[in-house]
């Protein structure tokens, strides 16, 4: 028993340590990429080309004092960052990084992802309420309404994947897409793919759906009262969730660990030496770059427009496409079904 426990713990850390390093460098690349998009350099002083900048930031936050506002609910105020990071890292248990590279290969993987991502909103709610601050409460209301709304569209988009693959096991979903890039689910599920990606951006409260932070309206939203490490934990959870959305998008719609030329005559065997995780991370990096690209490109949505987009556009699109998908599966169309 202790041997399995030991192995499980080793696997968990083998996922979490690269994840945290990934988060650190995601923040670095965000500042660099957006810097270049806005015709400036971004951080380039700490270390070679600024590569040590994220660690400098983390150290700075580590040494800052954590202040608790007056009349704040102290216990809940300090519990909120934990509530937000817990689900954000727990989801990674079911993510397959390559064939068989998964901590917990459970049958209800997709459902587990939905459950864990819906738990993340408690960190936001508790943080906003316990802060005893108007801005934090407003940010909380916005964030939770937005997350609850977009969760429906996101869930429906994933139902499409579940129908196409015929399984909720994430490794099974990837295996159902085996083959070159036109075999992947992004093609038959194109509208669902777009809906998933838009709701993924909205779920993580990122630009152009970042009214929950809305620094020009409500200062910084739900985490306005947090400082030091408590703030850093929220930051960590947000970026871990963003990377998660990218990786799930790659698994559900872009064939996970398969190379784009898998099963083709010449290119397929020629690229067989590349480990599967490289392909998965390359696909995820594309989405991660899109996150930064959106932030540098789009102006912020107005709040009522966000709600309208979620309820009146994305959800009807998913419902209609589920019907179309049923017909496609029933007729056995294409290389997919």
């Amino acid at each position, binding site marked *: 028993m202790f041997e399995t426990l030991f192995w499980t713990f080793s696997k968990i850390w083998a996922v979490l340590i690269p994840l945290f390093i990934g988060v650190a460098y995601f923040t670095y690349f965000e500042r660099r990429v957006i810097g270049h998009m806005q015709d400036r350099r971004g951080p380039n002083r700490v270390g070679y080309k600024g590569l040590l900048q994220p660690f400098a930031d983390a150290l700075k936050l580590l040494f800052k004092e954590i202040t608790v506002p007056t009349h704040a609910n102290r216990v809940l105020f300090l519990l909120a960052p934990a509530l937000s990071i817990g689900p954000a890292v727990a989801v990674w248990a079911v993510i397959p990084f390559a064939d068989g590279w998964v901590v917990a290969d459970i*049958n*209800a993987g997709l*459902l587990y992802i939905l*459950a864990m991502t819906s738990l993340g909103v408690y960190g936001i709610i508790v943080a906003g309420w316990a802060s005893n601050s108007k801005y934090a409460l407003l940010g909380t209301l916005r964030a*939770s*309404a937005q997350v609850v709304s977009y969760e429906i569209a996101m869930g429906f988009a994933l139902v499409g994947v579940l129908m196409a693959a015929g399984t909720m096991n994430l490794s099974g979903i990837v295996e159902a897409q085996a083959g070159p890039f036109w075999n992947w689910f992004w093609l038959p599920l194109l509208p669902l793919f777009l809906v998933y990606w838009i709701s993924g951006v909205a779920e993580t409260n990122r630009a152009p759906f970042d009214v929950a932070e809305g620094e020009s309206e409500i200062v910084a939203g739900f985490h306005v009262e947090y400082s030091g490490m408590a703030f850093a934990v929220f930051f960590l959870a947000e970026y871990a969730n963003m990377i998660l959305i990218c990786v799930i998008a790659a698994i559900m719609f872009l064939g996970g660990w398969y190379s784009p030329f898998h099963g083709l005559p010449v290119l397929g065997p020629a690229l067989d030496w590349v480990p599967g995780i490289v392909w998965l991370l390359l696909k995820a990096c594309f989405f991660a770059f899109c996150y930064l690209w959106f932030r540098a490109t789009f102006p912020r949505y107005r709040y009522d427009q966000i709600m309208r987009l979620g309820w009146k556009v994305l959800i009807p699109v998913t419902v209609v496409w589920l019907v179309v998908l049923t017909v496609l599966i029933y007729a056995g169309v294409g290389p997919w079904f």
Partner: protein
Amino acid sequence: MEQAVFYLFAAILLFAATMVITVRNPVQAALFLVLAFFNAAVLWVLVGAEFLGIALVVVYVGAVMVLFLFVVMMLDITAAPMREGFARYLPVGILVAVLMVLQLGVVILSDDVALVGGLIPEPAADADNIRAIGTVLYTVYVYPFEIAAVILLVAIVAAITLTLRRRQGTKHQNIEEQLSANKANRLRVLKMEAEPRQGGEGAERQ
């Protein structure tokens, strides 16, 4: 090992459930209810009902309680007036509690159900919870399932019609009009003749 996990989560569940009804602050009560739901989900997963357990988290913890907290957070509820009726409602509360315990006892102790000793049948090693539930739900129980869905839909429509109230004179935006706006009906470019300066600097000073 499994028993230890069961007793741990069962103890937290009972503790959280007690806190829900004893804690003063309604927001904290709602958060304890979330904790109770979560622990109940863990117990379900422990007996092999993984679908039910995760569905409990998705539906109750992820959606229902979030909306519940939403309302509780925005209402300014003070705990004192809520305590006043405690003695008055106590007899009814005890009656309901006793009734529920009796009902549970009848179910657990009856020979037909045989929960005591018989326990829950061990699931097969390759049993796929979700596939089994899906198959049964959409073949054997398809009519009850669909009827339940329609009843829920009716409830939604009823709730919306009951609370829908069109007020006169509200300033809401016509989204369609906003979206169909273009340059032609927002912007007017005027051509004006350049006029000669009147007087000049010196004229103003006088």
